[in-house]
């Protein structure tokens, strides 16, 4: 049957809508091979239709299969692209190594370009009224208080605050920090707010 491999591919990525999977190079190659084969068979039969009109229907069936494969592949790439976009907002501009290796080279290039675009857009914001840009990835929820108490979830290392103080973020240590300085770390899962 046509276009079965590509469905496997989509089901795989649909199973984990909230995380990104390894880019499935191997399966994509197989699908492209299937499409190539279909195309060649179609070329042959299309040339033969002058003698045998009934072959035309066969060509149409294969053509539908080709279009289907194309649609599925594009959908796969598009859904991954949306996930990569989310990665930029949630993990920040530098991806952890274990996520980096899940992307293909082209996807990583796209990520870098998106990241640069977003950064230059955020820098350009509010320049006409004297600000030097706004970080849109901050304050996704309205801030309730200036300082919050946080628990460190993993060994992160040193963090330099805006006033020049340097604090050591060690696992299971508690800190009382300005909300503006730790909310990015909370989103990245380094700190956890204690309420």
């Amino acid at each position: 049957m046509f276009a079965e491999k590509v469905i496997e591919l989509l089901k795989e990525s649909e199973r984990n809508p909230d995380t990104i999977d390894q880019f499935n190079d191997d399966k994509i190659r197989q699908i492209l091979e299937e499409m190539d084969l279909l195309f060649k068979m179609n070329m042959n039969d299309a040339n033969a239709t002058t003698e045998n009109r009934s072959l035309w229907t066969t060509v149409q069936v294969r053509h539908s299969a080709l279009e289907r494969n194309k649609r599925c592949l594009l959908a796969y790439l598009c859904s991954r692209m949306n996930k990569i976009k989310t990665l930029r907002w949630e993990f920040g501009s530098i991806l952890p190594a274990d996520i980096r290796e899940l992307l293909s080279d082209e996807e990583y290039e796209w990520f870098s370009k998106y990241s640069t675009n977003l950064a230059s857009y955020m820098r350009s914001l509010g320049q006409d009224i004297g600000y030097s840009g706004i970080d849109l990835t901050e304050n996704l929820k309205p801030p309730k208080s200036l300082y919050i108490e946080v628990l460190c979830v993993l060994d992160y290392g040193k963090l330099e605050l805006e006033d020049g103080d340097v604090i050591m973020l060690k696992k299971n240590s508690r800190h009382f920090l300005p909300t503006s300085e730790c909310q990015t770390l909370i989103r990245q899962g380094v700190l956890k707010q204690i309420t």
Partner: protein
Amino acid sequence: MENTSYLSIQDILVTNEKVPCKFLHDLPKMGFLDPSATEEDLKAGTHLDIPLWLAESLYSRRPPLISVELPKIYKESYREILGADACTVDMHKLGKYFYEMGCYVAKHDIKGEVSATLMNTFRQRFRMLLSASVSNDSISSMQPLSESERVQAAAAATTERALAMWLQRGESPLTAANMVANHRKRKRAEMEML
């Protein structure tokens, strides 16, 4: 509608479901579509279950290469069951994509009763879903849901939880981003498997 877009994975999975069809023309070299056929060509008049996407595309050719028949859940006998009480039907088993698929096959139903059944079923089942999600303990006691109903039920549950939290505390604490949290959970699961 969002879920009929070209790039929607949801719609692709819906159109992967099979529908019974009758072939109106000979298809040379397409005998492999019919697993019970021994010949190389597919003869006109063959009845076969083919994926909806293929059926749609062959049906839209001029002249149509096939005629599409209704899958069994949209037939008279099942319509009667759904009309009697749609809430007792195991939707997951009968039609994982009951509504979405119904929208596609409704145009092949000459009498036009399928669309009425779809509306009616949705009305009955949505009421059940709604009352179950506000009381938040009875979702598991419901009949297995179709795919889109599952999404609705999950959305209802999250909203309900968020509302309860907000009412209790009047604020929402900062949390780790969705993908970050899920990535970590998954990594932990992989570690435990090793």
